[in-house]
């Protein structure tokens, strides 16, 4: 039987504290999620019992640490439904995963005059690496616009696709608006033109379907820390055919086969892309987070979060002067808003004085803020441990702030 979602909150020790003498209401989950005790324990257990440098050592601890590390690769492959664990590369996070592809793919496949397509809904981490790669390679940076509802303009996307397009990089879920992009459709359109797609799954992998074969993504990037795992560990999934063709990104130990003054040859997949001593403890933490998530019925978890989001949207929409951004058909876990006449920064700082943690500002999505002609938003974002009481506290807090600032 799957674990009851309503009991999840008890698994996260950080959530039981008070802030400014009030119970913490943590609604900044799109920035980072909190960690369950099992993840915290997995990291400290590793250092207490198994710490050693992996792969090359032949003593018992090294073998134990290597097995634990490689076990997580299998867990990630299963979680994503990847065809093989060899298609899973451990990185520091989504940003590094995307930089890896931008660098290596750019080196191998992008020539002057070629084109790369990203969307205007991207986080800077799936925007800037492509921008820089285009500069390096003399390629052209194209963007898919979004409409007044906060949804991508797929007609414009189809028109952008042409014989010079080399890659499409797009997020599954917008970190700023919560838009769930029609990723299967985008991948299908790109593949019809024989163009690979990188999917930024940073806001999706913990909330919605994450079957990379079903979505047919060529590359899929995500961070551990937004899915209840530690900071400093992330994943790049890539189809084997791409990993075989791409040159290495970082170089050094672990990733080599033979090293002589004349020639360096590379290790097999996935090690070719994992230079240096990896972040073993946090990879093991990621494994514990996946085990934790696997206790839930994922469809039930998604339905719970969607219902919570609807509840929150309903509460906020009743507050006079409050404007929710995006009129999105399918939204996930993110409530972006402003209140007329109140700067987002002021809202954030005053909600904190009530123990409520939200994010304010541009959320690393300046192109979205520019398109909406705003300097930023207040963003409340959900995780599986949130409940209706958190959203009641948010709505009540916002009303207090309005009374305080609009005297």
């Amino acid at each position, binding site marked *: 039987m799957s674990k009851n979602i309503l009991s999840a909150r008890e698994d996260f020790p950080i959530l039981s504290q008070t802030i400014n003498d009030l119970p913490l209401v943590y609604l900044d989950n799109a920035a980072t999620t909190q960690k369950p005790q099992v993840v915290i324990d997995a990291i400290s257990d590793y250092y207490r019992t198994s710490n050693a440098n992996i792969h090359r050592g032949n003593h018992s601890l090294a073998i134990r640490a290597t097995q634990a590390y490689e076990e997580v690769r299998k867990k990630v492959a299963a979680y994503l439904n990847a065809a093989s664990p060899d298609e899973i590369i451990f990185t520091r996070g989504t940003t590094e995963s995307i930089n890896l592809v931008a660098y290596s793919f750019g080196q191998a496949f992008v020539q002057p005059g070629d084109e790369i397509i990203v969307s205007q809904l991207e986080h800077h981490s799936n925007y800037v690496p492509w921008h820089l790669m285009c500069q390096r390679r003399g390629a052209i940076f194209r963007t898919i616009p979004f409409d007044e509802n906060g949804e991508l303009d797929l007609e414009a996307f189809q028109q952008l696709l042409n014989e010079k397009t080399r890659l499409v990089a797009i997020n599954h879920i917008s970190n700023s608006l919560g838009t769930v992009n029609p990723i299967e459709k985008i991948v299908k359109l790109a593949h019809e033109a024989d163009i690979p797609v990188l999917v930024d799954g940073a806001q999706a992998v913990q909330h919605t379907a994450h079957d990379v074969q079903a979505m047919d993504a060529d590359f899929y990037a995500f961070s551990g820390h937004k899915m209840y795992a530690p900071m400093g560990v992330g994943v790049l999934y890539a189809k084997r055919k791409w990993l075989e063709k791409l040159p290495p990104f970082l170089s050094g130990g672990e990733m080599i086969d033979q090293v002589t003054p004349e020639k360096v040859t590379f290790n097999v997949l996935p090690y070719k892309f994992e230079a240096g001593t990896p972040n073993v403890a946090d990879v093991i933490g990621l494994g514990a987070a996946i085990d934790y998530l696997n206790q839930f019925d994922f469809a039930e978890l998604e339905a719970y979060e969607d219902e919570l989001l609807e509840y929150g949207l309903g509460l906020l929409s009743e507050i006079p002067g409050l404007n929710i951004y995006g009129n999105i058909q399918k939204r996930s876990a993110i409530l972006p808003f402003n209140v007329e006449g109140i700067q987002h920064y002021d809202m954030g700082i005053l909600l*904190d*004085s009530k123990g409520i943690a939200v994010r*304010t500002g541009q959320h690393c999505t300046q192109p979205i803020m520019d398109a909406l002609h705003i*300097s930023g938003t207040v963003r409340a974002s959900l995780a599986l441990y949130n409940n209706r009481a958190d959203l009641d506290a948010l709505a009540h807090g916002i009303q207090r702030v309005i009374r305080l600032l609009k005297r």
Partner: protein
Amino acid sequence: MSQKPSIAEIERSLIEDFDLLEDVEEKIEYLVDLGHEMQKMDPALKTEDRLVKGCQSSVWFDIHCENGLMRFSADSDSLVVKGLVAILDKLLNGQPAEEVLKMDLSLFEKLGLWHHISSQRSSGLAAMMGHLKQAAVECLEK
């Protein structure tokens, strides 16, 4: 015209005022009131080149140096930040540039403006102070 009180004197009086306020919410309410009471900045002066970099909200400073004294007008689109600007205005407007250079931000701890406002980068307090000190250095070089 009576001489402007020293920075230390103004600090003491601000600390006394804030001590009377019971909780964070009251302190912020008072801070916002200070912002409202501050002399309005000419909207024409709110230009890109007068924006202070490093703040989450927009903060404009128009700074002049007159006979070694710092004079400025300032504003922010954030009411909380505007309150912080008002405190800097009370303390530093019309003070000698040397005194502005000596100013540190420990006052904001003493006012009980909790850790956020006094230390969070996004409040831009450090950026604003850096901006004023840079102007003070230029003032002394003249």
